């Protein structure tokens, strides 16, 4: 009898498992995407200059380099780059290349020289900023500890929430599958007893149930990936507006494709879908074999 026919004979059990798995996979996809995006976003923001020290126009270049030396000697700084007025103008032009009016209005004299400082740890940002502020030649110090801190906090919260949700969800799936298999084993107790007497192994007996659950797993994974994909493309434009200015965030690259978490590209989407499918497969194998070892003697 085909797997599909066997599933059709127990439609309510099949639907129960299907919905439980579909919902779990959808949550798994949603959280995996969010966590990966936030983590990559934090990494990206951390690669940006963490403290930018702007100097007065009257400050001599030698004083700028003296401060740079002092900052490096604190032992808290990973890197401190000198940005001249010419370089500042170049950066400005690059950032505003689509705004000719803004480009016309600004010359290099309007831009200050600066130091872009990267600290070894985020907690050094405050100390470095205070040290720089004391220097007489410094006009302003800008740093983005707040943004990084907020993002780290958000990411941590999302990770904890995801963990709780997913644990609860997978526990539900585990019990739904386990109960369904147990029902099926009990309903076929006599048949299983005969099969055992004929020499059937536990795996031989459980194989049709395993096949049925793997088919449900496949359908649930395809369904949840489709809904997640649809949702992403539906709310994606709003998200793009919110994250404008954030460049493409690539999770990893291969010679054949880049896996971009932002904006989500097809390879990354397929990787996420495959991930949920594999998690489902592992869960089903584990649950089915556990039920078999418990109920098939």
């Amino acid at each position, binding site marked *: 009898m085909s797997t599909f026919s066997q599933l059709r004979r127990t439609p309510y059990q099949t639907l129960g498992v299907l919905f439980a798995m579909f919902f779990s996979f959808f949550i798994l996809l949603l959280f995996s995407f969010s966590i990966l995006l936030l983590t990559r976003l934090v990494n990206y923001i951390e690669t940006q200059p963490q403290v930018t020290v702007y100097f007065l126009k009257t400050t001599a270049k030698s004083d700028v380099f003296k401060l740079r030396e002092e900052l490096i000697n604190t032992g808290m700084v990973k890197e401190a780059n000198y940005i001249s007025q010419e370089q500042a103008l170049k950066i400005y032009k690059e950032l505003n290349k689509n705004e000719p009016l803004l480009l016309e209005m600004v010359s290099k004299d309007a831009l200050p020289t600066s130091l872009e400082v990267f600290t070894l740890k985020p907690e050094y940002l405050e100390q470095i900023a205070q040290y720089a502020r004391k220097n007489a030649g410094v006009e302003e110090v800008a740093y983005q500890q707040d943004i990084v801190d907020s993002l780290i906090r958000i990411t941590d919260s999302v990770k904890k929430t995801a963990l709780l949700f997913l644990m609860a969800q997978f526990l539900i799936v585990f019990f739904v599958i386990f109960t369904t298999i147990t029902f099926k084993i009990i309903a076929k107790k006599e048949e299983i*007893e*005969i099969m055992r*007497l004929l020499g059937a192994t536990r795996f031989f007996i459980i194989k049709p149930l395993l096949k049925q659950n793997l088919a449900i797993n496949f359908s649930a994974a395809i369904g949840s990936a489709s809904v997640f994909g649809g949702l992403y493309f539906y709310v994606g434009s709003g998200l793009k507006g919110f994250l404008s200015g954030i460049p493409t965030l690539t999770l990893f690259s291969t010679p054949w494709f880049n896996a971009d978490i932002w904006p989500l590209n097809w390879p990354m989407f397929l990787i996420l879908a495959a991930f949920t499918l594999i998690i489902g497969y592992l869960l089903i194998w584990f649950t089915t074999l556990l039920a078999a070892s418990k109920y098939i003697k």
Partner: protein
Amino acid sequence: MIKFEHVSLSFGAGNFQLEDINFEVERGEFIFLIGPSGAGKTSILKMILREIYPKSGSVYVDDQLISSRKFKEVEKLRQKIGTIFQDFKIIYDRSVIENLVLSLEILNQKNPKEEALSSLKKVGLEHKANFFPLQLSAGELQRLAIARAMAGGREIILADEPTGNLDPVTSWEIVRLFRQIHDQKKTIVFATHNSEIVNTLKKRVLLVKKGKIIKDSRDGSYKLDNK
């Protein structure tokens, strides 16, 4: 092929079902296990199939000690044995052919359907291949059970009262089938209390009474009366 050494079986303290059973069955041999109801014939068959294990003593099949609780290859052992159970043990929501195919799939046979049809032909049930067990008579169910035991090259055939509750004509049909099976050099252990069959076939007879083997007649000369 099958060896019992000082085998005792009890259900509860001191209440012996079988006591000090010793016998050996050679490969290709046909033996009758005879005795009154409750003598312990079925228990002996169950121990060979390792449905139960003895309280003491050893049971060997193919030189393997199968009576140990640590014996792990139960499935492999059962795959060597075709059993005709007293209550048939046929799966009622599968058709005749599906019952046979299942048994052959357990043995990992390459063409289970072809093999199943050939076995059904041997027992004269090919025309009922797609029938369900509830549509068969007792004799036909027995033939189906025999076909299942024969199929797939199982080496040992255990038959527990295969002619019980059958009319004489059908019983002799069943006996004819057992003769065919024996011609294929299979080892057969046939538990019965049908004296006519035992006396006609003239095979080795083990007489079990009150949990003991009281006679082992190897030359087929043993005559069982109907009392």
